[in-house]
């Protein structure tokens, strides 16, 4: 199961072609969420889908070299801390917790900065949690076999 590399050349070629466009679409959804549908949650899932596709086609070991497990776990925390950190920063700038108005001299720009940072935190956490879920499910029961 673990190192089973898909024998079909169609799957491996198509997934290689699709990998970069999926991530670019994820980034588009992430940073265009202010203007169209989308945002951190959806973007995180889309980016995670690219990595999950990679590990499904080329095997879990290659997926783990692409996204090492420990780095993935650190990034899970980084996302939540980025979100909570924006709130802490706004406290230090004489605002209330998660009050983005004080992040810039112009309240409207401050809201922009706050929303983009917060959505980025959500995106990072969602993407890494999804990758971690996939790896946990896929590698479950390996040693017992």
């Amino acid at each position, binding site marked *: 199961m673990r190192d089973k590399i898909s024998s079909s050349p169609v799957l491996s070629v198509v997934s290689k072609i699709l990998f970069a466009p999926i991530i670019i679409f994820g980034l588009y959804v992430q940073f265009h969420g202010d*203007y169209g549908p989308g945002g951190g949650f959806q973007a995180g899932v889309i980016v995670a889908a690219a990595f999950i596709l990679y590990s499904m086609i080329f095997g879990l070991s290659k997926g783990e070299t692409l996204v090492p497990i420990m780095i993935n776990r650190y990034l899970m925390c980084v996302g939540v801390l980025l979100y909570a950190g924006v709130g802490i920063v706004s406290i230090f700038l004489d605002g209330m917790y998660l009050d983005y108005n004080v992040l810039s001299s112009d309240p409207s720009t401050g809201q922009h900065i706050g929303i983009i940072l917060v959505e980025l935190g959500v995106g990072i956490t969602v993407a890494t949690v999804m990758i971690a879920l996939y790896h946990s499910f896929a590698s479950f029961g390996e040693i017992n076999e």
Partner: protein
Amino acid sequence: MNFLLINFFLISLLLVTTFFIFKTTSLISVVALTGAFTLLCSAIYVNLDAVDVAFTEAAVGSGISTILMVMAAAKLPEGKKNKLINLFPSIILAVAISLILIIIIANLPLLGDPNAPIHLHVVPEYLKESKDFFHIPNVVTNILASYRGFDTLGETIVIFTAGLGVIALLTSNTLNRKTNFKKNKKK
């Protein structure tokens, strides 16, 4: 009229999918049909102009959770059929819940009714002031990240905690895996 026709079509497809989910005995087909079910749900949300919800439903519901369910189903032993042993209690429960839901539906406001309670509380204020203040056209993003920033922080922490729980349950020996492989090789 078109709206109603499309809605009717999609909901009848949902019913057909539900019937086949009930009927099939193989786990993998149930997983695939559930994926189709959530995809139909996201089509219904698009029809209702809830594009953000539809996007989330398509990405999370029919994308990632189908993959995770397939992975989980692949770990289960093969050849076991999904058998319902005693149908009687489940039928009574299902009928009771359907009756309660039908009674509730009669009390719900009509679809798109501007005087529905949900449209009278804070929504008019948000819709009026958010574009001038934030200069961000997507009101959903404004509500999600700014007006309801605490809720979204909570949601992110919930996802984080869920990930931690799954990691702790399923991959308790991930870090020892390499050493275990070496031990197996020695044997």
